[in-house]
């Protein structure tokens, strides 16, 4: 499913079919000059603005929407929690699934999927990425990078600041030849 279809479906939950089509079209038209991040920011911004005005203009209809929204998220969430309580070994899969679906809904975030996207954040070692790796491997080359001072590497009290981290990230990006880190 393309970004515009996804955006239109999302907007269609909160406004009329015609409005959703026109808004999705407007946003895709402007996406060419503003980029994918801008597009999704304003799809979500418009959904929020429309739902906020729905609350003030038609409180009853808004309540219905809230109920529908809760059901939409509650059903898979309950199913996931139930599955994990029965089979604790599924926790990694559940977490990977949640993170992956967030990435997936990010749509444009996938473009240029690269080391910078999946580099472990502060406090995380590369092994955490391994939980996601099996699902990413079919489409992407997955590299796990552990920051200095993590794992078994030395951890001096000075010299490993954010400047050094930035430098390391740039070096790794250069080394693997990523053109457009997202």
């Amino acid at each position, binding site marked *: 499913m*393309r970004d*515009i279809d996804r955006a*239109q479906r999302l907007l269609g939950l909160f*406004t009329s079919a*015609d*409005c959703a*089509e*026109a*808004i*999705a*079209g*407007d*946003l*895709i*038209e*402007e996406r060419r000059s503003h980029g994918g991040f801008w597009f999704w920011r*304003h799809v979500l*911004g*418009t*959904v*929020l*603005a*429309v739902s*906020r*005005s729905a609350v003030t*203009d038609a409180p009853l209809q808004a309540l219905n929407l809230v109920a529908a929204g809760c059901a939409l998220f509650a059903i898979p969430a309950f199913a996931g929690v139930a599955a994990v309580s029965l089979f604790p070994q599924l926790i990694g899969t559940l977490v990977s699934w949640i993170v992956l679906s967030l990435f997936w809904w990010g749509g444009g975030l996938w473009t240029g999927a690269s080391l910078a996207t999946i580099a472990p954040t502060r406090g995380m070692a590369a092994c955490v990425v391994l939980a996601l790796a099996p699902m990413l491997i079919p489409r992407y080359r997955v590299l796990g990078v552990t920051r200095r001072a993590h794992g078994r590497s030395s951890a001096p009290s000075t010299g490993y600041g954010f400047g050094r981290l930035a430098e390391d990230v740039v070096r790794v990006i250069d080394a693997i030849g990523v053109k457009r880190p997202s």
Partner: protein
Amino acid sequence: MASALNLGEFEQLILLAILRLGDDAYGVTIRAELAVRAERPVSPGALYTALQRLEAKGVVTSRMGDPTPQRGGRAKRHVAVTALGIRALRRSLQAYQRLLDGLDLFRGAHA
């Protein structure tokens, strides 16, 4: 005055932008017109909710255009100001005009 419909400042700006754009008034062009002429960058969400509100008040009407490939095959939603909208706008702007009469605001007399 027949109409007692009050328009907010943002609504007046949108109506003026629609009038200026004529047949080419839709989401993208209205936002561009407001950014250039009114020096007011407006988020898409703010514009669409305001347009919905204006349509509910009967101040603007909309019609769907033809789908275009540049827009992923989606149609534009063209908007136009209704006669009621024109009357309400005229009334709001006349109020400004009457209040401005006798003031020297634009030459800095009240700075």
